[in-house]
Every structure is written in C-alpha cells, then in structure tokens.
C-alpha cells in the first residue's frame, strides 16, 4: 500500500480509497464504524502506524468525527471523514454548515450509502444532502473509480478550500477488482497550525450568513464548469443512436451488463460528478437524442433537474424518469436495470431474462452468535416481563433480539433513540411496563442525551444497557468504554460512572449469563418508580473466543456441551426459547449439538428444566 512506484492489486473499493488518501497527501482521517465503510479502517490499520502518513481515529459518533476533520482542515491539513449512510443524519447539524466555510486544508466526506438496505435501517439517498447544503458530490461505479474519484474530490477540495462528498454505495465499497494505482510521493509534513480567523468569517450568525451562503452558491456554480471535475464524466457511444441513458454510480455497471443482451445500444452519458449537475454536458446529450432515460438508483434526484434544464432550453427530447415506486426502491442490480430499460423501451430485449426458481429452503436471517450474552439476557428478560409489556430496541447486535424466538425490542428508529422513545411510550401509561435496550458503543455515540432527559424530566422506564465491551456488529471496533482507542490505550470511560454522572440513581449490574439474577433484577427494577438502569454485562463471545483461539495457537482446545439423550425430555426449551443455533433437531425430535457452532460457553445449561445439557468432555478441536 505504501509502494512509491505505480502498481496494481486486487482490492475492494474501501481499500482503494486508502491508497488514494496516501497519494492525495491526506493528513487526518476520522470515522465512526458503520457498514459498508469499516473496511476503510481495516486497510488503514494494515499500514504500520510508524509509517502511516496520516492520523486516524474512530470518533465517538459521526458528528464528532466530522467536526474533528473540519478542525484539522481549518489548520491547513487535508482531512477525510467517512461513515455509513445514516451516519450523515447524525453529522448533519455540523455537516450542512461546511459549505459556508473557507477550509484551507480541504476536506473529503466519504459516505457509504446502502441501496438495498443490506445493513441499515433505511436506504436513504444522501445525494439530497448534497443539494441541500450546496456541496459537490462524486459518485464512483467501481473500486477503480473509488480510487480515481477520491483523488478528483481531494483535488477539488484542496484547490477550492472546501468540503467535497465522495458517495460510495455498498457494492462499490465491497466490489473487488484489480486496480491500477499511481505513484506515491510522500510530501514533507508541515504541522504549522494555520487557522486564521481573519481569512474569512467563521461565525455565521444572523445577517453574516448571507455573504457566506452567496460564496457557497457561487463556488458551486463555478464547479459545474470546472474542467477537472467535468473530467469525471464521460460520453459512451458515437451519437448514432436516437436513444440515450444518463446514469451514475454502480447502476452504470448494471446498465453495461443489461446492454450485453440488448439490441441496438443507446448512447450513455456516465456522470462521475452528479452534483452540481454538469448542465452543459447534459444539455448537449439531451439535444442530440430523441429519447433519454435517466437511470438513477433510489430517488429521482437528477431527473427533476434534467427535466427543468430541457424545459428552459426548449428541448423536445422525451425524458424518461422513474415510472413507478419500484424504480425508487432497492439496489439497481443488473436484472433490475434490465427490467427498467425494458419498461422504458419494450423493444430493447428479444427474450425474457433468466430468473430465480421459487425458493423452497427456509431463509436464514442473521442471529445472535453461539454464546452471545445478549441471548442469555433476552431469554431472562423475557421471563421477567409480561407479553403485554413494551420493549424498545436500539442499533447494534442486540437489535437481533427483536427476531424470534425472543421478540425483545419491537420498535427501532436510530442510534441512541431507545431511552427517549421509551420515555414517550411510558407517558400516560400505568398498565404496560416499558423497557428499552442500548449497547455500550451506542450509549456513548448518541445514547447519553436521552438518558439525561429521562433523569431531568422524570420519565418512568427501565433501560437495559447490553454491555459487551466492543462495537460488535461492525467488526469489534473499540469505543470509549473499552480502554483502547485505534491508536492505543486510552482512559476507560465506565458506563456506570457515566450514568451516575448524568444523575441516574437506580442502577443494577448483572452478568448476562446469570439468568436468575437478571430476572430478579428486572422484576425489581420494573416495579420501582422513576428511571432505572440494569447493566447486563458479558463480553462479546465472538471476539473473546477468537482472541482466546489466537492466543492458544495449536494448543487450542475448544469446549462443547452435549445433550444427554437419557435425561432429555425433548421439551425444546433450548431450541425454541433459548434459541442457540448450536442446537439441531434430528429425527423424531432428538436434540443434538452442532460441534462446528458450539463454543462451550454453557450459558444454555441453566435453561434446560431436565438438566440434560452437559459439558462435553470429549470436545477436541
């Protein structure tokens, strides 16, 4: 990755972006982990810290990460912040201000949007934010373009002293291909803090907003004809077709696949910079075609602008936008793009496309891992509540508790919402207990204000902090409660101390494996008045087991449980209520333990009313 010569390597888009950071002279990088972007941090970690030419941190949340990157860029250092789609909502309060600022170092905001909601709570289209805040946005289609367009975005950001968006999507972040990288010439680092409050107004208040807004809009207008920015767009086809397609991002590759089956090919205007819309190039393309399909994944963001351009120019081109709601939904995979093209131009394809046969095998949704403390906690908490009580989920591995067989956490908005949503559910409600959940990383991310509010405004509910000592869902990143940052040891922020500092008086702590104690703690907490917190603590066993296995090396001996068939009464408590995936049901309902899955944690043993789950002393591997 640090090679000075040009080279090529098979990488995913997230990794390609890191080489682009090096070549662009980036000095400061911040993030909060969220799919599809944490692999950017993995690639950064793969560069030895001693030879890494930039500083990286996982900040406490996306807003903080954005602010740290902004501050660093104010001092003249090219800075990058990256996070997932919905992370931009968290960052938005500061993010939308960036275009008002003169940012000497320049700043690139790398977004991992998630069309198809592969690992997100929605599939929001963050191009809207670019429009709202007057910020340029580049949209690569592939790993190779993620690399080249990062460099274009960084160049623009540095030249014009501003923030620029690089919008990746899940299957650009994770797409893997051989990428040709350019040479890397490390520049000497000048650490001089160059922030100059007099070089521009940095305090937009009341009427001083207007010159800043004017500058932002003028800058955006200039970028619409910036030759280097426009070089990320390209025209494909010789203009011989009366049909054209305007497309950007990964949908372009799906279009190319679909066109492999097509009759006469339309011309294609492939946009790299989608905001500001390159009006000149678009108008020329419209004027030279009779019919143009605007092929954009998710929302019609380009379509209304393109139609407005054509209207103002008096063009008669037939512009085909979104034809139904389905065209706004889901990822534009090749088959979907083919269907969309076929809907716009029914004569385009001669034969029907291949499709899937009807599914017959049971689907396999994600679930809590064997040994997960959350499973033990949900199993116990469910016993302490009545079916009518209300449980509120938050974001993290423990969100999986909402699925069968637990059904714990039945409403979800966003990171950190649970305490405040539960506070509202508890209003005017003397009959149904309200219990909400939050993980430890999310607690520090966005959970604290809801807790402060619950104390301050005297809300009546029980919060369960599911403390597993890591940011598990996104790949086990550290957080302020773990005593480690990306760069080494750091002061450990205690969850309990944070709660006490916010004024929480009623706190219980239980190991999540101790189900009887947890049931008792939940029964007590939910019957007491006021705002109560139960900390259900157990380390993430996926992380714990991996680390133990790595430490032990060849000496590793896995533990297992087995089901004693003589005492098993086949009441299915382990399978049906506890729900560890290690338990398998065989012929006639016989329960066995899948040795590939079981980690021998034993959290299941207390759930069996006949004591049939026993330690398997023969466990070898």
């Amino acid at each position, binding site marked *: 990755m640090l090679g000075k010569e040009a080279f090529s390597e*098979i990488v995913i888009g997230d990794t390609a972006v890191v080489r682009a950071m090096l070549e662009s002279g980036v000095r400061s990088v911040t993030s909060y982990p969220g*799919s*599809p972007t944490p*692999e950017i941090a993995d690639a950064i970690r793969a560069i030895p810290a001693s030879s890494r030419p930039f500083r990286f941190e996982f900040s406490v949340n996306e807003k903080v990460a954005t602010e740290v990157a902004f501050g660093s860029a104010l001092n003249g250092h090219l800075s990058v912040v990256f996070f997932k789609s919905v992370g931009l909502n968290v960052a938005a309060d500061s993010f939308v201000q960036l275009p008002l600022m003169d940012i000497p170092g320049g700043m690139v905001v790398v977004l991992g949007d998630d069309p198809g909601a*592969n*690992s997100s709570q929605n599939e929001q289209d963050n191009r809207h934010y670019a429009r709202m805040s007057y910020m340029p946005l580049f949209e690569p289609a*592939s790993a190779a373009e993620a690399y080249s367009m990062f460099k274009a975005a960084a160049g623009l950001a540095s030249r014009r002293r501003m923030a620029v968006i690089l919008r990746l999507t899940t*299957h650009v972040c*994770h*797409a*893997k*291909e*051989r990428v040709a990288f350019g040479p890397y010439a490390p520049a000497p680092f000048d650490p001089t803090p160059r922030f100059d409050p007099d070089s521009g107004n940095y305090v937009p208040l009341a009427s001083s907003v207007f010159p800043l807004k004017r500058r932002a809009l003028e800058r955006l207008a200039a970028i619409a004809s910036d030759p280097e920015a426009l070089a990320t767009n390209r025209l494909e086809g010789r203009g011989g077709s009366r049909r054209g397609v305007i497309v950007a991002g*990964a949908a372009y*590759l*799906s279009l*190319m*696949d679909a066109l*492999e089956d097509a009759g006469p090919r339309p011309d294609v205007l492939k946009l790299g910079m989608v905001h500001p819309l390159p009006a000149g190039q678009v108008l020329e393309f419209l004027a030279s075609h009779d019919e143009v399909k605007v092929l954009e994944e998710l929302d019609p963001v380009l379509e209304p602008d393109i139609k407005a351009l054509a209207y103002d120019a008096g063009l008669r081109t037939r512009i085909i936008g979104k034809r139904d709601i389905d065209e706004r939904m889901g990822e534009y*995979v*090749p*088959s979907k793009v083919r269907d969309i093209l076929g809907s716009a131009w029914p004569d385009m394809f001669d034969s029907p*496309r*291949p*499709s*899937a*046969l*009807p*599914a*017959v*095998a*049971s*689907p*396999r*949704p*994600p*679930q*809590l*891992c064997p040994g997960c403390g959350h499973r033990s906690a949900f199993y116990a908490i469910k016993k302490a509540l009545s079916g009518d009580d209300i449980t509120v989920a938050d974001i993290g*591995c423990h969100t*999986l508790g909402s*699925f*069968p*067989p637990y059904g714990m956490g039945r409403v979800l908005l966003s990171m950190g919402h649970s305490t405040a949503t539960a506070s509202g559910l508890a209003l005017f409600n003397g009959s149904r207990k309200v219990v909400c959940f939050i993980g430890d990383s999310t607690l520090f991310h966005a959970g604290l204000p809801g807790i402060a509010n619950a104390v301050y405004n005297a809300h009546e509910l029980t919060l369960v902090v599911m403390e597993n000592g890591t940011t598990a*869902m*996104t790949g086990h990143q550290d957080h302020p409660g773990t005593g480690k940052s990306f760069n080494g040891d750091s002061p450990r922020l205690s969850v309990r101390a944070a709660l006490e500092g916010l004024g929480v008086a009623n706190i219980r702590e239980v190991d999540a494996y101790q189900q009887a104690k947890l049931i008792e703690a939940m029964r007590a907490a939910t019957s007491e008045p006021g705002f109560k917190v139960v900390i259900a603590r157990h380390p993430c066993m996926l992380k714990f087991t991996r680390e133990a296995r790595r430490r032990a*090396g*060849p000496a590793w001996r896995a533990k297992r449980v087995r089901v004693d068939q003589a005492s098993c009464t086949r009441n299915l408590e382990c*399978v*049906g209520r506890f*729900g560890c*995936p290690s*338990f*398998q*049901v065989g012929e006639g309902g016989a329960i066995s333990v*899948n*040795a*590939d*899955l079981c980690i021998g944690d034993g959290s299941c043993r207390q759930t069996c009313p006949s004591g049939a789950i026993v330690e398997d002393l023969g466990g070898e*591997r």
Partner: protein
Amino acid sequence: MSGGFDIYVAGVGGQGIGLLSEALIRAVDYAGYVVKGCDTHGLAQRGGSVSSHIRIGAEAHSPLVSEGRADLVVALERHEAVSAGRAYLREGGTLLWLDSTWQPLAVRLGGARSAEVADVEEAASLRGGRAARVAPVAAVDPRSHNVVVLAEICALGLVPGLRLEHARSALADLLGGAALASSLALLADR
C-alpha cells in the same frame, strides 16, 4: 475465456466463504483472466446466509452475478445449496456443494422442513445442470472445509483454465505459517 464465467458462492456466516472467494478470485487472476467480485459484509455475517459473487471475463461489468446466470454455484451448506442453486444456477450449470447442515431457525422450531440431498439434486436438475456433492472430511476442522472445496473446484476442473497451482499461489498471498501449510496440504491431497 470467451463468453465469461460467473460463480456464486453461498454459505453461512462463520464458514469462511470470504477466504474461499478471495482465493478463487486471486487464483483466477493467476490463471490470467480478468476477474471481479463482491462479498457479503456486515450484519448478515451474524449466522445468516452469506454470499460471494465472482465474475470472470472482460464482458462482466457489475461485480454481482445475476439470478439464473451462474455457471457454477458453490455452497458450503445444504439449505444454502438449495436456495443458491434455485436462485442463481444457469441452464446446464454445475452446483458444487459441501454436505454440511446448519439448520435455520425455522427448521429448528419445526416451522419448516429440513433440506435433503434430493432437494439439492432437484435444484440442479430443474436447470438441466448437475449437482456435485463434497463429503465433509472428519479429520479436517470444519472451518477449513472452504479449502477442501477450493481443492475440489480445481481438481474437477469446474472453472475453465483454473488449476491447483493457481490456487496454491492464491493461498500463499492470503495465508502464512501453519494456516498456509495446512491449507496447502489439503490441496496436495487432491
């Protein structure tokens, strides 16, 4: 390779299909073909279905294999073999599957039927293709069966132009120490 060649790899989070698909992509690269692909990351890795897409040839644009278009479907589990075969196998394609069983929740709860060998064979035959079963090797760690399957793909010549030597080079890029040695030994057994 004319006409391109698409591979869809399916399994359960934790089975190591990430290494299998990375090794396949690199092996195909060593064999001299243009290749691209894409893996499942994130949420679905938590015991859910996971998949990898591998596309070979210059006429492959998207990293995603389309339904009903995979020349080769590789599955590391019985239920996944049925689902992936029915969704992705092309007419006349090959479904290579490791005969392991990780019951989905609905099967364990009794709400759905467990997949049988005949279901896998039907998934292939409905497409006019063939199913090739790989038996788990008792002496091999379950997490190393991804390499067993890689060896099988090469030995059976299921990917045109791909040979064991390419897989060896790929694994040497990805692994080191004891893990590399034991993986190379699994390849040598074929």
